[in-house]
């Protein structure tokens, strides 16, 4: 039973933990996981969350499970991880996760000039804000740290069970 549960959880988190293989022509240029990329990217986009003790990367697992988020939006999120890493390889011959902080900022400044890149960062920031400022029942907004940061009391009553 335990192994079944583990497998189910693994499948649920499949997108985050499976390898993103990056090629250029026939050569494999790099292998990373979406989780690693997203974790580093989210900290680059909104380091305040880490200061507040909020884990925003795991929230993406919830996003992937959510039936009210369209499949194509989930696909876009997934493809963006690949495209971000491809841009990193093009610019610095390394996956995003292996770049220095300054190099990663350069990559972000590069992709934001493209339509997909700006849209993808916008999407990612919105999920970061959901994780940081949504009800703590979803696992983000640790001890209401996001709300306290913005002097926000939260609406009452709070949810007793998760919807997402």
């Amino acid at each position, binding site marked *: 039973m335990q192994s079944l549960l583990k497998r189910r959880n693994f499948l649920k988190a499949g997108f985050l933990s499976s390898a993103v293989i990056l090629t250029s022509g026939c050569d494999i240029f790099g292998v990373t996981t979406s989780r690693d990329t997203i974790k580093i990217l989210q900290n680059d986009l909104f*380091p305040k969350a880490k200061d507040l003790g909020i884990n925003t990367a795991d929230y993406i697992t919830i996003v992937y499970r959510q039936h009210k988020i369209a499949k194509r939006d989930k696909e876009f999120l997934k493809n963006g991880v690949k495209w971000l890493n491809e841009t990193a390889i093009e610019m610095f011959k390394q996956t995003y996760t292996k770049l220095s902080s300054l190099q990663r900022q350069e990559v972000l400044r590069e992709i934001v000039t493209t339509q997909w890149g700006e849209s993808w960062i916008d999407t990612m920031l919105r999920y970061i*804000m959901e994780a940081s400022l949504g009800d703590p029942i979803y696992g983000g907004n640790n001890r209401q740290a996001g709300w306290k940061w*913005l002097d926000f009391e939260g609406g009452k009553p709070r949810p007793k069970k998760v919807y997402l």
Partner: protein
Amino acid sequence: MYDICIIGSGAGGSPIAYELSNAGFKVVVLEKGALYDETTFNKDELAVSRRDMFTPPLWEQKHIINEYSQSGKFTRYDGEESGWSFWNGSMVGGSSNLMSGYFHRMKPADFELLSSYGEVKGANVVDWCISYDELEPYYDKVEKVIGVSGNVVEHDFQEPRSTPNFPYPMLETNGVTKWFDAACETLEFTPVPTPRAVLSQNALGRNGCYYSNFCGSYGCESGAKGSARAALLQKCKAKVITDAFVYRLDSKEGRVTKAHYYTKHGIPHTINAKIFVLAAQAIESSRLLLNSKNDAFPNGMANSSGELGKNLIFSAGGSGSGRFIFENLTKEQRETLMQPGLFFNRSLQDWYDYTDGCHIYKGGTIDFLFEHQNIISRVNRELYDENGNIMWGEKLAEKIEKRVTTSRVLTFEVFNDWLPTDNCNVAVDEEETDKYGVPVGVINLNSHPQDLEVGEHLAQKAVAVLEAMGAVEIDYSISGSPPPNLVAGGCRFGNDAKTSVLDKNCKAHDLENLYVTDASFMPTGGSVPYTWTIYANSFRVADVIKEELMRDSSHS
């Protein structure tokens, strides 16, 4: 067999359920959505606002939208691909659960738009077939049964009332309303406390408002908000069947005989009743009738006039805002500004009609309210810098913190007539179907140029108030983009069966036992939100149906 089968449990259907079941008749209400109530409502922004938990996913149920330009050309939008949704609250009580409850009566002149203001080129303006005086007793009834709080202030366009004031006192308001009132005095405008369908005290077996700070878009867990569920369905014995999507009506010899519905898993059921009342919200009511073709009604049920689905209207206008920033305020003013929970509740109706040059225009209403407290939405509005570039990192966090904690936004909403036109209507698609296999609705959209001119005129007045109050970053948008939650028309009522779908009692001209009591009946919409008028009209029709059933009972 039921005496009455009502399709839709919102503001259009529930007054019938309440009145008829309390009169001893056997009533069933078919509701597509689920039951949520005071025990389950909460302020979960992620679920309610970010994931629209009360509306169906667009990949399961969508509309096709054709947006017409003034030249008559249109652009087609697939609801699923574009994300353009016209769904509201799919739940017991409908979208009245989620309304803000800004309640204004229509004015006497709204019932005589053609006679009062004349023809408008390119618009199908007509007078209503009932007068304000005929509806007034029912507006009054809504104040008492649904519960409306407010305070009557005399002004040029105050409508006649049969009682001097509202049955419930005004809700508490934020101190910034004093700044508003002072600005209006300087400008010689008349501030009106906005009437609200929210109880300011315990009454009617419901709790008073507890000032949660989250009213619009959310269900109310005190029961203070006058939703059709809290105020009516929970106060009567009508049977409500949830998860019941009605997809077709059958008729025989001039009478509706059956309503067919699917559960969400596609299990079919039928209901028989003596009288059928359709109140599925304007677009869906027309869609259901158009999808209920038979030999007698090859173009859709109750459509011998060819008017079914025509003259769809919305509330025209738009919205705007201004920001109050700490740098411009004293310590005391800052504290007043940031008082949580209390309402703003101010409206202006000084320009319900106005003269421009030699022409008298029908104007409208401006409601003022604080920006919604949804914190994620507020923060998301800060993701771009003043040049429109997306931000990230420390700079973004600093901007968010400053904007949210040291300023507050006052918004306004403009309501004016959406003039009915030939290119604004409901049809059904010949190819696209929803998850039930039922043809989806086609929404043809067109706004009349005068709608924008009037909206612009009103918005300028709102801007003047915000400027006089000391707000900065004042901005607004008046557009022909329709608010999906403020929709009416499609089944016009009228005295002539050749030019209208319903008679003056909202009974289909073509059928003996079919009534339509959501906002579909409205030939024009007035310059106010519709809900109070929908409730009032439904109570009016309830009296007609009650009389008919009592007459039948005494004969049998």
